[in-house]
């Protein structure tokens, strides 16, 4: 075989041991061939970069083509907890950062303690193309290219559309519009405000499906396409946009927001009856009592992980169970790269009757999905490293109702395979975790 062909077979992982040996012999004696291999390795690196770029580009098109759906590609930047690990994660995203797609719509003027989930870069000073920004914590100011400045408070979800148009889907913002940006439009679900050179506050209550506008200085007009209503508001005036139309607000601003309802249900913890199992027992050093881990890899199946955790339903009266929710807290465990996962990972939860022995539990001895009842699924976008995820389903309620009074075990499995080896290991806090709470079963 020609040495060039051998090099390519070697680089795509198809060379046989004999071929590797042959290539090694030729490389030892031929400096020209060594040069060749080094250049082909660079070509290989370039091809891989293009492959990753195209894969992420496709997602971007999907997001842009279907604006009502959540934009797919998302990157989490946590400046507050900027550590070496985050720095490494950033390295993987460098190609995306360097090539913002499309024209510049806005820049991030400043941020305080901001952590983001975003389809666009979130470093202060970044030039942002059209896309979405989700502020998970902190405060940030986004300056549209027209000069309009939107200061958002977490949690907030802002969509950048054009230099003269943005959409606030969730959260609160204060909008400052200089003369040159008069006519700037801020849309909220169900309504939009056109600014006539002013400063106004807006807050969107996603759950109640309302948007409140209050003019701080100057003038705006608020339109409600659903009812055809439009009003002009001047200084200190406010209005509430809701399903039916616009409702003039009083002059007393009062306190914004409302408290959550008080839960009257039962909350159960595992009391330490929990474990992670790893397929290849030799990798036991890759599990940790603080975490309940889940991973699936067809690249390195030995590192597959599942978790089990048990609750005692002794105090539960089956007849009174109306709804059940299982809460898990996602926490970073430091293993693997999120960029090597598909955009979303799906997890399945199985209910198993009884409580096994969890000490030194091995993969083969742990409950298998086939032994359990499927009680629900949930998905986690790869950009998410923390947060509360829950399963609330009829199947879960039925399972708890049927086994009230007994101990039950749940098996957590990640159904989604990684896209490349060394993908992120998902971890949920165990009851030992120092910061986040372990699995909680809420019974109402």
């Amino acid at each position, binding site marked *: 075989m020609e040495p060039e062909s051998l090099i*390519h077979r070697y680089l795509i992982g198809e060379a046989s041991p004999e071929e590797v040996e042959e290539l090694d012999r030729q490389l030892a004696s031929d*400096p020209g061939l060594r040069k060749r291999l080094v250049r082909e390795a660079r070509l290989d690196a370039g091809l891989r970069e293009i492959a990753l770029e195209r894969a992420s580009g496709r997602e971007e098109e999907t997001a842009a083509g279907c604006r009502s759906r959540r934009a797919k590609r998302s990157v989490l930047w946590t400046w507050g907890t900027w550590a070496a690990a985050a720095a490494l994660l950033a390295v993987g995203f460098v190609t995306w950062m360097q090539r913002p797609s499309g024209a510049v719509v806005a820049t991030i003027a400043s941020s305080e303690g901001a952590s983001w989930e975003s389809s666009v870069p979130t470093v202060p000073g970044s030039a942002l193309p059209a896309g979405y920004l989700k502020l998970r914590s902190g405060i940030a100011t986004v300056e549209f290219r027209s000069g309009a400045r939107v200061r958002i408070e977490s949690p907030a979800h802002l969509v950048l559309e054009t230099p003269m148009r943005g959409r606030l889907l969730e959260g609160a913002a204060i909008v400052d519009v200089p003369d040159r940006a008069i006519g700037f439009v801020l849309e909220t679900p169900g309504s939009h405000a056109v600014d006539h050179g002013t400063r106004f506050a807006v807050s969107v209550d996603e759950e109640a499906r309302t948007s409140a506008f209050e003019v701080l200085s100057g003038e705006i007009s608020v339109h409600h396409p659903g009812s055809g209503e439009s009003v002009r508001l001047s200084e200190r005036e406010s209005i509430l946009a809701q399903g039916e139309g616009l409702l003039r607000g009083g002059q007393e601003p009062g306190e914004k927001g409302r408290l959550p309802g008080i839960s009257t249900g039962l909350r159960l913890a595992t009391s330490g009856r929990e474990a992670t199992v790893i397929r290849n027992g030799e990798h036991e050093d890759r599990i940790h009592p603080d975490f309940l881990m889940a991973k699936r890899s067809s690249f390195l199946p030995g590192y597959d992980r599942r978790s089990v955790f048990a609750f005692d339903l002794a105090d539960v009266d089956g007849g009174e169970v109306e709804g059940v929710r299982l809460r898990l807290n996602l926490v970073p465990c430091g293993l693997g790269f999120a960029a090597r996962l598909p955009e979303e990972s799906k997890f399945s939860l199985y209910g198993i009757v009884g409580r096994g022995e969890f000490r030194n539990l091995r993969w083969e001895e742990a409950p298998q999905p086939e032994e359990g009842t499927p009680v629900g699924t949930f998905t986690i976008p790869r950009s998410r490293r923390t947060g509360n995820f829950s399963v609330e389903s009829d199947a879960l309620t039925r399972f708890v109702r049927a086994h009230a009074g007994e101990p039950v075990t749940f098996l957590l499995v990640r159904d989604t395979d990684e896209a490349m080896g060394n993908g992120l290991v998902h971890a949920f806090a165990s009851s030992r975790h120092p910061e986040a709470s372990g699995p909680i079963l809420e019974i109402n």
Partner: protein
Amino acid sequence: MRLLMRHEPALRAFARSLLPDWQTVDEVIQEASIELWEKFDQIDGEDGFLPYAKVVVRFKCLSAVRDMRRDRHLFSEGVLELLADEAEQLDAAENAPALEALRSCLDRFSDPHQELLLAPYSGTGRVRTLAESQGKSANALYKLLGRLREKLSRCVESTLEKEAC
């Protein structure tokens, strides 16, 4: 951090010339990044960064190969040292034009051929899946892939030569 980000593609290509697969390349770059991050203060200015980083990556690659040698067939240590010397000579300034040349050359291939050329980086077994969907043997598709890569490589080299004149 900025330096690391700027030179990361060059370091990745450097490691690729010494390591048999992308997974090991990624692991090595990850380890090297941590070390570079920790020793950043000791590095002598911006110009000193890339040469120093290459030494770190070289060391990590050779040590990764030693660990892998037990169960895989790999290049001999002598050849790896020679390759590392060669890879250190490669002009980092040429990386950006090489990538541009690669992009424009790749665009000249038909869509199915582009898909095949990028298949080895789109998940394990992607070439085999393509073969199945086209009703061809995996072996035949690997042979075609080899020919396409050679053609692509010639195109990149001739583009770079033309630019150099």
